[in-house]
């Protein structure tokens, strides 16, 4: 067992919430017990963008630069593409060194703790960053969909940490059918044999937890497919309900799948709990258990509060259940190789400084706009915040076709031109505005975030958007 421990935690959940009441009004009943609201990703959010949100917060909490990370793991049951490594893009969003280990964990709701175990086992000199993010879906009438939430957590792992992992264990036992997603499908489902499902969950978890030394627990971060199962299995794991509830997120965020235990762990550590059990379950089935001892407080930055309550109709729009496919007309054609060339700008706002006159250019290509010299620009990473210079809010009919579906899902969106300063020079760029308030005023401060821009040739393009910077 390595002496590596936890340096910092970060967490993120989309601001949108739909309540159990909205489901009950629509369907006559709500099928996910113990859940009051679920978090709903915006049309341009997915596991990768949420993972970035949690990841930068974990790094910021500890004041660590992404360049100090030499092992990056990303865990989700919902990678944005069935094939194509998402972790490489996550590393690029963050600025993780290209020679660092990039590893993806998927296929099970315990992928998040699998990533944590892999980080602890990794033989690295520097820091390891474990990022778990998820956004499961089900059929609209299905209990899995009623429970389905969204969220992400990141755990920064390395030596000489304020919290250490004192014990860990795992258990695997074949339990087919408890929760699965068919190849090519977006929706999770199950065989819905309640006693079988509960037994698989309870017995697998209990076996893993039984193998660790878990005395004097202050909190237990237990896998939460809904808000009932963890408590049904509490007795078998030797836990009381309060220990689970103290760091549970399922009642507010819903089922966060591979991010479930990492989110509860981050919550427990952020709340100052000293001895914390992690216990994850993945269908198939398998379970991981580990114990964290926090001798000192663990730096944390969590952004998991809700901001906007959705009606069920608005929820269906966000899920794409009542929206059309991409309209005819076609998207702006930016070839993938062209996009690839602009990735430092798309992912990290890398501008260029003119070696002749010192002014900034964005994107940094062609002649310097100020002195008109044809130069090779020196890379300059822009700050995360800028100031709105001009702005509009685009209503239905004002959008390019590639944004029509996003607008059907999320409604009117803002687009600002914002100026960013570096060393006394300023450069501007157009950015879509996301968040609760999408129409900033000229002069407002905005911060940039990673979101989906659009998809063309089947390839999802990620880049920066802006949100009003309220500190």
């Amino acid at each position, binding site marked *: 067992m390595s002496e590596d421990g936890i340096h910092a935690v970060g967490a993120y959940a989309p601001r949108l919430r739909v309540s159990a009441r909205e489901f009950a009004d629509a369907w006559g009943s709500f099928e996910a017990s113990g859940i009051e609201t679920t978090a709903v990703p915006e049309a341009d959010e997915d596991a990768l963008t949420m993972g970035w949100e949690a990841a930068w917060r974990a790094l910021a909490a500890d004041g660590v630069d992404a360049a100090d990370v030499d092992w990056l793991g990303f865990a989700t049951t919902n990678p944005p593409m069935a094939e194509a490594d998402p972790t490489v893009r996550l590393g690029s969003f963050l600025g993780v060194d290209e020679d660092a280990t990039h590893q993806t964990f998927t296929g099970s709701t315990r992928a998040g703790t699998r990533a944590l175990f892999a980080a602890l086992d990794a033989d690295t000199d520097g820091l390891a960053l474990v990022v778990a993010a998820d956004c499961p879906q089900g059929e609209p009438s299905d209990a899995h969909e009623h429970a389905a939430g969204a969220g992400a957590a990141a755990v920064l792992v390395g030596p000489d940490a304020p919290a250490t992992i004192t014990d860990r264990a795992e258990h695997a036992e074949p339990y087919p059918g408890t929760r699965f997603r068919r190849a090519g499908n977006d929706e999770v489902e199950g065989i819905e044999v309640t006693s079988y499902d509960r037994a698989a969950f309870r017995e697998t978890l209990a076996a893993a937890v039984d193998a660790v030394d878990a005395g004097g627990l202050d909190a237990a971060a237990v896998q939460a497919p809904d808000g009932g199962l963890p408590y049904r299995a509490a007795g078998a794991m030797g836990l009381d309900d309060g220990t689970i509830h103290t760091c549970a997120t399922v009642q507010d965020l819903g089922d966060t799948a591979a991010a479930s235990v990492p989110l509860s762990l981050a919550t427990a550590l952020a709340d100052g709990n000293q001895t914390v059990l992690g216990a994850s379950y993945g269908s198939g089935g398998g379970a991981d258990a580990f114990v964290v001892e926090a001798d000192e407080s663990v730096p944390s930055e969590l952004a998991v509060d809700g901001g906007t309550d959705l009606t069920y109709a608005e929820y269906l729009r966000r899920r794409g259940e009542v929206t059309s496919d991409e309209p005819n007309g076609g998207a702006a054609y930016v070839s993938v190789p062209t996009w690839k060339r602009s990735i430092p700008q798309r992912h990290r706002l890398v501008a260029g400084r003119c070696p002749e006159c010192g002014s900034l250019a964005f994107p940094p290509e062609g002649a310097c706009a100020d002195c008109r010299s044809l130069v090779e620009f020196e890379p300059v990473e822009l700050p995360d915040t800028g100031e709105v210079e001009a702005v509009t809010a685009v209503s239905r009919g004002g959008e390019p076709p590639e944004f029509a579906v996003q607008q059907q899902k999320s409604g009117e969106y803002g*687009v600002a031109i914002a100026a960013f300063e570096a060393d006394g020079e300023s450069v501007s760029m157009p950015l879509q505005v996301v968040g609760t308030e999408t129409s900033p005023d000229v002069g407002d401060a905005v911060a940039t975030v990673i979101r989906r821009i659009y998809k063309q040739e089947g390839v999802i393009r990620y880049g920066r958007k802006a949100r009003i910077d309220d500190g």
Partner: protein
Amino acid sequence: MRDAYLIGAGQSDYGSFPGESYRSLFRTAFENARDSVPDGIESADVDEAVVGTLGVGGRQLGLAGPAVTEHVGLHGIPVTRVENACAASGYSVRQGVQAIRSGMADVVLASGVEIMTDVSGDAVRYWLGVSGETEWERLSGTTFAGVYAQMASRHMQEYGTTREQLSHVAVKNHENGATNPHAQLGFECSLEDAMDAPTVADPLNLYHCCPTTDGAACVLLASEDVVENYTDDPIRVAGVGAGSDRVGLFQRDTYTAVPASQYAADRAYEMAGYGPDDLDFAEVHDCFAIAELMAYSDIGLCDPEEAGEFVASGTTKRDGEMPVNTSGGLKSKGHPIGATGAGQVVEAFKQLSGEAGERQLDDPQVGLTHNVGGSGGAAVVHLFERGEAPSASGSASGRGGVVSGPRDTGGDAA
């Protein structure tokens, strides 16, 4: 260098015409231009043709020029297709003037055509979006409505321009368009109509945006050596100016002006030896209401902070001191992208020939046309004068004390 003259100009109706093709519309415009030449002209007299088109919908993207000129029996002559987005045919007129002034041609057909309404609204938005800066500006979620709305937001913040002032542009241009039988939206609108329309891209609403349009326009230009064969009352191309700029708004030095328009106006005024005070009317590029307000200051009619009041006060109405867009402008007459610049010259020709019917101004001598590509990536300005050079009003040439462009890029004038 010899002068070029405007001897004829005509357009098709502007509107939505499912029964027409881009070629049939071009034919109508060509026939109207040919028939407008006072002493007549034969097709065989045309030495060269220039055709402006964007190619909305993707039809005949290659060889779009010969595809329309062969349709009107002009095959054989040199034909060049010009694409500068919404300034395509303004630039085709400029190309025609260049051909004549260089001595390479005596009679040139300068023209434009576009069909925009036989594809879906989404497809039109695709095509409108391809002339903006594609990789960053469009992928922030804007078409031109959004980009001009950003300019409007800044204009309102810097100069106190109001939504009501923007709406006055629509009211005035519809009032004019209602008197133009070729106009697409030839009806009047009230200030309330223009204020209360649904938002397209805040602060711009539907009445602050021009329509999409099918249409064609043709202009016939002749050299000083042959002009007397066609008219006894020649209209001289007194000034031509053009300019370009960064394609994306975010890359420019200002969001409340179109520097390319300023470069173009400066160069046209310099060539003509005129200033804004010498104008009797102007046809400006009002693709969006804010674009007309910016045009006022970019061509030197007023300072930018005065632009809102300039329209609200009635100064630019048909009976005002400085009539702007007597044709109805892009807002009411319509905006068939590739045809728009040549279509503006059609209005200048009619006004200067006394053929503008109900909207005829009282004996105008000098008119200006102003055509912008995209949100200002390119612009072209022409000055036309009737008869002998009028005595200048005494104002110095150029836009005078009005805001100058961010940098002097040298003259286009001969």
